[in-house]
């Protein structure tokens, strides 16, 4: 047994040294895992700004024809808006909004006062570009302020006629938002499982290909097999080397994520402090680790059936998509954990990781089921990978 592990170790060490000298293997294991967190933080920063609807920021509102509506200006200023002179005319205003120089412009047309005095609806234009998500906040605030002024005037008119303004309000809709700041932010953090899946399936990909299809393509497989090493020892060494690269890549994703959360000032854009205890990352790693045991033998099996490095690369690049798609959906439609979902490898893990991120209770029983099923399937795949190498057809590909 000791001699056995000795040979496994020899194969493992060779594959690690060999692939540490390979640019593609290093890129996949060390650089790609960084892309996810960086992308996600960028996304958080952008989305966070548009979500910031709490209105404690001063709203700057360019206005055309402010002199025609002093009461409106007084109301808006009173409500905390900073009224500035807008572009000279409507055409210029449209151009400025279209170009994205201004988010929204309020236009008070001529005849505003006359209509208002006659008690008819007085037109006020809002020049806006609804396709710009980053303007959506200011547009919404401007529209609500104008609506508020309209209702205030309307109520005064009703009162002047002896009618209770409340009769015009048939419904009193109250919103009770139970989302905690943490869970709102977690909606975006939910992308983490998605990136973890990619690390699991991409981190060791090139090593897996190099050790299987690559070995055969460069003609080094046949001489390798003419060594007094059992096939399972060869496969074990290669699998372990691939797992090592994969673990490295998953850990890097988590560390990068933790560091970015810690050092990128997200509370400014999100208004929420994303707090994840360092221990959460260990829990996430423990939940994610069994997927590595599943992914690596799967990569080996797929790569073993291909005829060349390129072909293997084509197939393996698509491998993460199947488990990652449900992860994408989960980011926006959280699924409640159940025994049934835990039985699906990678899906169960993603749900559990989401719960950790949301600061929710994680049922140890669910973790046990998910881990058990995934490891069980991983062992089956492992056995298949070893068997594939025991056949003599391995020399030619299948």
């Amino acid at each position, binding site marked *: 047994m000791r*001699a056995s592990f*000795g*040979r496994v170790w*020899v*194969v493992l060490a*060779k594959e690690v*040294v*060999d692939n540490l*000298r*390979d640019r593609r293997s290093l890129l996949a294991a060390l650089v790609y895992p960084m892309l996810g967190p960086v992308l996600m933080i960028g996304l958080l920063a952008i989305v966070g700004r548009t979500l910031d609807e709490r209105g404690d920021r001063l709203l700057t509102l360019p206005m055309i024809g402010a002199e025609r509506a002093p009461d409106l200006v007084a109301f808006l200023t009173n409500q905390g808006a900073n009224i500035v002179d807008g572009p000279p005319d409507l055409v210029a205003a449209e151009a400025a909004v279209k170009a994205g120089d201004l988010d929204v412009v309020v236009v008070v047309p001529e005849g505003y006062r006359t209509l208002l005095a006659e008690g008819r609806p007085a037109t006020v234009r809002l020049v806006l570009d609804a396709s710009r998500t980053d303007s959506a906040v200011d547009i919404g605030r401007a529209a609500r302020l104008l609506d508020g002024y309209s209702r205030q005037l309307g109520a005064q008119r009703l009162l002047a006629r002896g009618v209770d303004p409340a009769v015009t309000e048939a419904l009193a809709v109250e919103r009770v938002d139970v989302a905690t700041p943490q869970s709102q932010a977690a909606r975006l953090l939910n992308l983490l499982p998605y990136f973890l899946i990619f690390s699991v399936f991409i981190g060791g990909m090139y090593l897996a290909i190099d050790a299987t299809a690559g070995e055969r393509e*460069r*003609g*080094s*497989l*046949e*001489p390798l*097999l*003419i*060594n*007094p*090493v*059992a096939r399972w020892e060869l496969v074990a060494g290669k699998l372990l080397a691939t797992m090592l690269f994969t673990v490295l890549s998953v850990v890097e994703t988590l560390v990068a994520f933790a560091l970015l959360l810690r050092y990128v000032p997200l509370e400014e854009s999100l208004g929420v402090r994303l707090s994840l205890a360092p221990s959460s990352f260990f829990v996430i790693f423990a939940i994610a680790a069994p997927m590595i045991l599943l992914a690596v033998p799967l990569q080996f099996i797929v790569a073993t059936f291909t005829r060349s490095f390129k072909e293997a690369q084509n197939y393996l690049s698509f491998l993460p998509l199947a488990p990652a798609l449900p992860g994408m959906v989960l980011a926006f439609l959280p699924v409640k954990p159940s025994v049934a979902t835990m039985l699906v490898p990678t899906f169960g893990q993603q749900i559990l990781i989401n719960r950790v991120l949301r600061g929710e209770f994680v049922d140890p029983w669910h973790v046990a089921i998910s881990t058990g099923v995934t490891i069980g399937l991983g062992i089956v795949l492992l056995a298949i990978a070893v068997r594939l190498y025991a056949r*003599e057809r391995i*020399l030619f590909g299948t």
Partner: protein
Amino acid sequence: MIEARNLHKRFGDVIALDGVSFRCEDGRITGLLGPNGAGKTTALRILCTVMHPDEGSATVDGFDTVRAPREVLSRIGALPDQRGLYPRLTARENIRYYGRLHGMRGLPLERAIERLIHLLDLEDAVDRRTEGFSQGQRTKVAIARALVHGPRTVLLDEPTNGLDVMSTRAMRHFVLRLKDDGCCVLFSSHVMQEVAALCDDVVLVGAGRVVASGTPDALRAQTGRPDLEDAFVAALGSAEGLE
């Protein structure tokens, strides 16, 4: 010593070996001669345990290639049909990897590597990555890694394929040296002159069968032709594939 008894092997409809038997003695060079596609590589692959015969058996020093592959593998050194190296490893690292797979380590391993590097005249290239090596250098490294554990039985599949004149000469000297050391050398070739110049025994194969075997002199006597090339052609029934 190598013994092949009645080896049969087919791939789908193609019969690669159709009852091949031969013996290779220690301290002698045995040439497996035949045109391309005669079954030489398949026979060597069975001896190297990477293929199993459909029928018949082969032994190395009495160990069966199917039942005791580990014993066989630790006793042979082989230059197979495919001889790819690891391009990102240096020549020395390539050789060392195989030594370690044979359970060697430390000083004895490094000494064995040095000896082969010297014998094969690889000193200049040994610490360079094998990426960009010439065909001759590649073959030398492939031989060095196959022999690093000092096997007594050596199987070489077309060792001079793709080599220039100088490398071919060096290879011949090396094979003769192995014989002087008492090794059992089996080497396959489709080049008649090469076999005639080196081999003590010749096994002539064609279409998966042994057509004739014996010392070059015995073969001449058997076919009644004084010239070895004529003898081969007569035995094979056609000159196809022989140079």
